[in-house]
């Protein structure tokens, strides 16, 4: 690395946002930068921000694609509210993102893209966007990225399109300089990715280096940042997003359960990637059935479960609505089934590419009759792995459908993941019929403590039986229209789910347990809530946090935990569904709500404000 002479800003953590037109390669740029930071030893959290349209017209705000990365020398839990550094490849990118830059932050723009046409497309009224957006106090690095890239590659015999595609590497080089980052990771990546096209490799590497050098040249006028590596546990690491983590968690469970994995699914944003990843995993023996619709997705999974596979279906809100009737079938048949629901903005088609937590009530109650099943929620991109694993474990061991809720934010966001050792995970053991019990076994006979019936694979000699959606006799499973039997069965099914509270972790309290205020959250908001609570703690403001992953059943100690606090604030990205659910379950406690419905996560800033206000009340 070259020596530095300009001002160096020492920081614990930094947020960088790359933004440009959909075609500008910002997702790749961001990914390379975050992986480099992760390899360097920083903890990271990222979030991509795709345009809702496949390809909105070039240069418009609708077409801006962004990628935010937050990295630091200790653990980071969110991609960050506001960016320290913004890269804006065109005026639309600046327009769309300026409001997300910290006051006084650094903004790198490709001045060559700031011509009259692009300014107009982005909705600027003047030819001076910096003044127009009141960015006078910011460090603006006006780099002629397009021209320098062209200049750099002009003699290499590349076509114009390929040359322009390399712009992002120039920007990336510049950002590497800004953070004093090594470039090996990116260099290796480029070499591997374009191995078949040495010219492209050469061009990209050249531009990357020149971007870095451009930083060296302009360093006198620009601060650069220094973030020390995190003190990170030994082991292997990778970046992973919530969807891949979910897919892998299911694969892990299938290995631990010694069951084949079956997915029946239909594509839907933002859940499709789970289907895609598992389709790729034929190497791991995963059977994937891309169904004609969501109903067939779950019904094939139910069939596979009957046949003895670890069966899964994955979807998002509108798809979950379609699956409601069939979930009821799995409930009454008492078959294991994992239903992954990646929540997005609703109602109806709503805001398909945005995040929200508004499917909780649907997961709990979106079907006819008293139809209880397990509902749980992952709370970070990487713990989607764990909760997918445990969803499968509970489904198999308790013979029940389990709905695992994630959301668009978790699904697409990434974190650094310490690659786990499967040996550290518990076994998954289905209840089977012991040979000595075969003679007396009945299909709906239950374990007297757990109320679990046994799971017999189709194909097992001697245990042929019939199941179905009609109410069944409590022992034989034959159709029963008897009213009292029905009431008993309704209660068994309820009790079976309730019993699971004995097999899940107790609810813990994070932040400052000794506080007047308990913040309650669930699912994907964990990173923001936790960061807010931690930051307040550093400021000397004590707030406790109870973040729920198990919703039905709730942890056994949940009531006791909640009872301890004077003020409880339930924070959710909906109108208060979990708060209402707590009101049903623990009506002797008062709950306040903080809700947001903007297709976005909470910001740490707004959370801290709320908590402080409430403490002062």
């Amino acid at each position, binding site marked *: 690395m070259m020596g530095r002479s300009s001002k160096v800003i020492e920081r614990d953590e930094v947020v960088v946002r790359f933004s440009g037109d959909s075609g500008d390669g910002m997702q790749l740029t961001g990914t390379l930068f975050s992986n480099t930071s992760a390899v360097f030893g920083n903890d990271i959290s990222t979030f991509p921000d795709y345009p809702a349209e496949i390809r909105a017209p070039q240069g418009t705000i609708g077409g801006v694609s962004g990628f935010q990365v937050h990295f630091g020398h200790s653990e980071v839990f969110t991609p960050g509210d506001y960016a320290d550094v913004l890269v804006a490849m065109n005026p639309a990118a600046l327009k769309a993102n300026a409001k997300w830059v910290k006051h006084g932050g650094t903004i790198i723009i490709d001045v060559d893209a700031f011509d009259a046409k692009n300014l107009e497309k982005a909705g600027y009224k003047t030819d001076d966007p910096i003044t127009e957006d009141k960015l006078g106090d910011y460090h603006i690095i006006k780099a002629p990225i397009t021209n320098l890239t062209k200049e750099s590659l002009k003699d290499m015999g590349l076509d114009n399109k390929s040359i322009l595609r390399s712009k992002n590497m120039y920007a990336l080089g510049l950002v590497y300089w800004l953070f004093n980052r090594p470039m090996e990771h990116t260099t290796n990546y480029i070499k591997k990715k374009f191995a078949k096209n040495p010219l492209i490799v050469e061009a990209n590497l050249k531009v990357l280096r020149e971007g870095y050098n451009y930083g060296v040249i302009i360093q006198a006028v620009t601060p650069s940042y220094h973030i020390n590596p995190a003190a990170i546990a030994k082991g*292997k690491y990778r970046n992973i997003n919530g969807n891949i983590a979910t897919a892998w968690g299911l694969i892990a469970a299938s290995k631990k359960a010694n069951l084949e994995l079956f997915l029946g699914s239909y594509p839907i944003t933002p859940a499709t990637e789970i289907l895609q990843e598992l389709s790729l995993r034929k190497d*791991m023996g995963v059977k994937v059935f891309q169904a004609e619709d969501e109903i067939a997705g779950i019904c094939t999974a139910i069939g596979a479960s*009957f046949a003895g596979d670890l069966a899964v279906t994955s979807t998002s809100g509108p798809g979950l609505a379609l699956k409601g009737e069939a979930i009821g079938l799995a409930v009454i048949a008492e078959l294991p089934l994992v239903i992954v629901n990646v929540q997005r903005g609703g109602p109806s088609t709503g805001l398909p590419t945005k995040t929200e937590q508004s499917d909780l009530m649907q997961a709990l109650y979106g079907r006819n009759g008293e139809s209880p099943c397990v509902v749980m929620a992952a709370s970070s991109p990487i713990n989607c792995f764990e909760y997918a694993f445990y969803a499968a474990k509970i489904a198999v061991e308790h013979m029940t459908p389990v709905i695992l809720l994630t959301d668009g934010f978790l699904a697409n966001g990434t974190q650094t993941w310490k690659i786990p050792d499967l040996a550290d995970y518990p076994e998954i053991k289905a209840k089977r019929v012991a040979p000595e019990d075969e003679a007396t076994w009945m299909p709906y006979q239950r374990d007297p403590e757990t109320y679990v019936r046994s799971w017999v694979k189709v194909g097992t000699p001697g245990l042929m039986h019939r199941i179905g959606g009609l109410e069944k006799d409590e022992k034989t499973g034959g159709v029963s229209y008897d009213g009292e039997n029905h009431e008993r069965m309704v209660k068994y099914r309820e009790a079976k789910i309730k019993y699971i509270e004995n097999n899940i972790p107790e609810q813990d309290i994070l932040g400052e347990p000794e506080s007047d205020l308990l913040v309650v959250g669930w699912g994907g908001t964990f990173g923001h809530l936790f960061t807010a609570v931690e930051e307040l703690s550093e400021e000397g403001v004590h707030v406790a946090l109870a973040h729920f992953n198990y919703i039905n059943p709730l942890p056994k100690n949940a009531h006791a935990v909640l009872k301890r606090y004077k003020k409880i604030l339930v924070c959710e990205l909906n109108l208060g569904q979990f708060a209402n659910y707590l009101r049903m379950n623990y009506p002797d406690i008062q709950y306040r709500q903080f809700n947001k419905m903007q297709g976005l996560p909470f910001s740490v800033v707004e959370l801290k404000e709320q908590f402080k206000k409430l403490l002062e009340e």
Partner: protein
Amino acid sequence: MSEECELKYTDFKSDLSVRWCAGCGDHAILNAVQKAMANLKVEPHNVAVISGIGCSSRFPYYMNTYGFHTIHGRASAVASGVKVANPNLKVWQITGDGDALAIGGNHFIHLIRRNIDINVILFNNQIYGLTKGQYSPTSKRGFISKTSPYGTVEDPFRPGELTLGARGQFFARTIDKEIKLSIEVMEEAARHKGTSIVEVLQNCVIYNDKTHEAITDKKYKADRTIILQHGEKMIFGVDNDKGLVMDGMDIKTVTIGQDGYTLDDILVHDAYTHHGAMHRKLSNMDFPELPVALGVIRSVKDNVYDVSVEQQLVDVQAKTSITTFEEMVNSGDVWEVE
């Protein structure tokens, strides 16, 4: 356990008492399926019978096999899951005209398109029996029922035509009370690799009695139906003197020995040709213009989904360098902190 074994049809009877109305065609079909299964020599525990909802869909309860009485219209999807999860099982789907062709139409055509190795027995009584008598997608135009008190204003699906439109490779037709024919047809369906659709003209004594009577009644049957056999001449009639011949693009009935027609002119049935045109014509034949075709109308070998899925898993696994969970999570962009 051996796949081949001596079985009696009573080995396929469950001990539940059968609850269809006295005189319902379903009884005979149950009988035929049990006998066909015994002939097929597949042990009951390797058989899964999957149904939707409807009178006919009560079927699995009466079978001493694995059975699943699922939800309305979804039998094809559940059965697909069973078969793909375990292709060694023999999977039978029992369904009604409402279950398969009203609410379940989409799964039905996609099952056929994928050609999953499932035997579908379609009980066509042209009525919703279980809900007590509303018209179905196979009810004839003008049919009067509880929901069409002035007659329907829509044409029915013809199950054979729809099957072929969805690229079906096996279609057969039989009549509830023709147990012998039903057994034959069901055995052929079961032996066929791929989706087999067997339409059974079934009588609902309560809500649509005698709907097929014009062709199924003993008095007329010989003259109004034709039993097709691959490789055989298409001959029918009480006196076996009628036959089918081409007439331009159409089929017509002739009497052998009349108008100059001889046995040589009569068409020979080819159930195995992949050409659908003739099969469509045969499956669409209707009384009074033409005899209704019974037996196996089409039976064509083709790629089978569940077989291909299994094969692809084998192929990929043979080639991949990733075979364990550890290898998977360590593939790609991974770094080590020491």
